[in-house]
């Protein structure tokens, strides 16, 4: 009965799925759904899937507050054997990086594990989340 589902999944070394939506909260549901679907492919647990969904929401909310109106938000999901990397990018009005001592950042870190932010020369700000495959993919030690 102990069927190891993780072993069935052949995740190629690096798959990237990119979703581009208008930089508006109205489309976040699309990203949440995409996140859940992709995380399920990587055999994340339900806990982790819900965490990721919320993390994407939070990252987008963080970026949308400074996004240039009428531009797009890009969300690149990178699937690799370690886990899922999600890079959310907007054209920002000020090019200012989100602060790391905020509640939002605390939330992001708790939900995603790894969080980073960067800005390029054109004021495009990216928040990158990196969630490692945890309980289900590796040996299910620890727990409870």
């Amino acid at each position, binding site marked *: 009965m102990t069927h190891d589902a993780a072993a069935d999944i052949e995740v190629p070394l690096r798959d990237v799925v990119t979703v581009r939506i208008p930089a508006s909260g109205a489309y976040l549901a699309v990203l949440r759904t995409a996140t859940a679907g992709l995380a399920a492919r990587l055999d994340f647990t*339900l806990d982790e899937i819900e965490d990721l969904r919320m993390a994407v929401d939070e990252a987008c909310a963080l970026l949308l507050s400074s996004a240039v109106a009428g531009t797009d938000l890009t969300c690149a999901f990178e699937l690799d054997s370690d886990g899922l990397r999600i890079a959310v990018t907007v054209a920002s009005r000020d090019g200012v990086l989100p602060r790391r001592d905020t509640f939002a950042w605390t939330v992001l870190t708790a939900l995603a594990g790894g969080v980073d932010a960067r800005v390029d020369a054109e004021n495009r700000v990216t928040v990158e989340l990196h969630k490692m495959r945890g309980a289900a993919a590796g040996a299910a030690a620890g727990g409870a």
Partner: protein
Amino acid sequence: MTQGSSTGAEPPIAPDPDIDEVEASERSGTDRAHARQLFVELSQRPEGDPTRAKMRDELVAMHMPLVEYLARRFRNRGEPLDDLVQVATIGLIKSIDRFDTERGVEFSTYATPTIVGEIKRHFRDKGWAIRVPRRLQELKLALTKTTGELSQQLGRSPTVAELAERLGMSEEEVLEGLESANAYAAVSLDAPESSDEGGGAVSDTLGEYDEALDRVEYREALKPLLDELPVREKKILMLRFFGNMTQSQIATQLGISQMHVSRLLARTLAQLREGLLHED
């Protein structure tokens, strides 16, 4: 309000709901005898007596604290409080018109279900309580049950593939079920902020997490928002983000399902975000 810089100054406080509630219940206590008398008089006046309308108005005014108290219990569900108070008042008026002093129950006891019913109807009419097709409702139930069972067996939350296998369905279907389980209104309106009791014990355990909060910027803005949260929602938030517990662990501790924890967390986060945004 500039964030962070108001140290020592007055925190940006929204009116403390708890204080209002205490006042409300005390006031209604002292008015109780008077209300009873008014109801008796009202029932004795003939239909069309002009003083009837006046008495009715007085009874409405007298019970507005109850209306506001009940409306406030639903304030965190995405509807403006004013609207809730308005529909709750309709419930109050209906209760006043139907109340029968002979019945021997307190008016507030009699009126509360009617008022709450009116508020719930408002949510339903507004479409918050999205009607989920029966197939998805059943799927959701099966998922909740199976998630619980598998979590027990595996010592961790299950994956979508594991759920699909156990339920004999495709991963797509499982995902669809999870999606619908996340529909906003699935947060039961029938259990409004039930966790008031036991609040003392809970806040004891929350103390340590308050310290963690001190390391977070915007705490002046955040704290009053957190204090407005129902005890259970605040506890879930703290355990997840400052206690480093997983959703499943929190679910076990609180005796609710992981999906419920997930929904409450998502909703609470959205609320806080909204609240912080308005502080800026």
